[in-house]
């Protein structure tokens, strides 16, 4: 930050949308041609991209070149000057004029929001004070009678899987819907599996030795969700990350043999159905399911808390399978 002017210049460039592209900026021939097109319409006025391409092809044909075999990004009649690695991107004049209003307006809105929010944050009741409105009788009820009503030691788990079990069902359904729509968007018919075994033996061995520990920790967090910090969401996330590590270490073919995609989607659907069946009765009886039909057990024992343990298992399966499904879908797309 010593070189203030240069740094400031970067920020201004960024805000104007004229940021230079980094080394991994897209560099394919289509894009090169598109850049040339942008510069052309900046100089000569607007023109459809298709028309521009047609014109260029005609030009090349007039020069006696074979338009099919010629590389698009290296037209011989216009020898490419050696371009600098980070040349500033140019924006066509038409778009620049339209975007100017938009950019100024959005900066203005953002600044207004920031000022209003800061004023509100400074006038809120102090951080960490006990007489805040958020700490009302709802939280008091959950904390005072949570253990006898839900049988769970962890009040957060008791809250999301007993008092608010209906909402958690909706959230699990959101996860399921996101996984299904991603699968629809990225569906690759002919998927090739590779047996990628890690870049070098050190990383591979380290991953292999870490894998059981991570999976065991994930299972522990899910199963102990009503007794200690954690639960289906946290443990499911850890399990999903562990499965991804397993796929990286063992290779995709091996993982596809152990846990094929079909099994994953079946497990998710079954877990969602099981959740619905277990909590279904309370959805029909006015969502008042604190009656105590199911024995709560002694708080602190592993078999306690009524339905919280099986519900935690269901949520854990849903979250872990969704995370792993995302990974396999994104992986299969690049082949």
């Amino acid at each position: 930050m010593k070189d203030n002017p240069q740094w400031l210049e970067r920020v201004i460039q960024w805000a104007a949308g004229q940021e230079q592209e980094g080394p991994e900026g897209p560099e394919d021939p289509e894009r090169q041609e598109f850049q040339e097109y942008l510069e052309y319409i900046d100089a000569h006025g607007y023109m459809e991209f298709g028309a521009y391409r047609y014109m260029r092809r005609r030009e090349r044909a007039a020069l006696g070149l074979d338009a099919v075999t010629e590389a698009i990004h290296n037209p011989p009649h216009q020898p490419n000057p050696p371009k600098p690695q980070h040349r500033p991107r140019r924006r066509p004049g038409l778009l620049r004029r339209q975007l100017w209003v938009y950019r100024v307006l959005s900066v203005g809105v953002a600044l207004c929001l920031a000022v209003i929010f800061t004023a509100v944050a400074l006038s809120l009741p102090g951080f960490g004070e006990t007489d805040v409105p958020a700490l009302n009788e709802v939280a008091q009820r959950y904390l005072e009678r949570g253990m006898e009503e839900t049988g769970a030691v962890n009040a957060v788990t008791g809250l999301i899987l007993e008092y608010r079990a209906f909402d958690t069902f909706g959230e699990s359904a959101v996860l399921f819907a996101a996984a299904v729509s991603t699968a629809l968007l990225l569906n690759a018919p002919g998927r090739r599996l590779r047996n990628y075994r890690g870049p070098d033996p050190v990383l591979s061995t380290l991953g292999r030795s870490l894998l059981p520990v991570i999976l065991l920790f994930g299972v522990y967090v899910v199963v102990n969700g009503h007794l200690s910090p954690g639960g289906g969401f946290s443990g499911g996330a850890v399990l999903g990350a562990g499965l991804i590590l397993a796929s990286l270490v063992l290779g995709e073919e091996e993982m596809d043999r152990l846990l094929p995609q079909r099994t994953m989607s079946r497990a998710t659907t079954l877990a969602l159905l099981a959740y619905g069946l277990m909590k279904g009765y309370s959805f029909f009886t006015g969502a008042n399911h604190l009656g105590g039909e199911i024995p709560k057990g002694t708080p602190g024992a592993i078999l306690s808390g009524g339905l919280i343990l099986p519900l935690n298992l269901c949520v854990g399966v849903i979250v872990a399978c969704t995370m792993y499904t995302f990974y396999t879908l994104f992986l299969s797309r690049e082949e």
Partner: protein
Amino acid sequence: MLEAILQQRYYITAVLLFTIGFVTLFLHPNLLKKIIGLNLMDTAVFLFLAAMGYVEGGVAPMLEEGQEWTAYINPVPGGLVLTGIVVAVSTTALFLALTQRLYRRYHSLNLDEILILARSGEEKH
């Protein structure tokens, strides 16, 4: 003034993060950066909620017999944020999938260029 800012440090940080994410979402032309900005806004809201639930000297709500309820932090924001984090990942995955589809069609991650191409009605092959 400085004392007030120090007192409300979590809220102020949440506001700043939210503004950074908001500006990125609206101003950066790259779709991946826009998604990162949206994620920043997500975490800013989570930070605000969790800071709301914190009570000075309170511990995590692992209930014990014979303990006053004021000894714990508020469990309600914790439950909200816990589910929120997981849902945020799934929406991010969905956005990334949509971005990949856009790239397959327009060969660009730059939203301005995509808009030009879409406007000119260019159908590839």
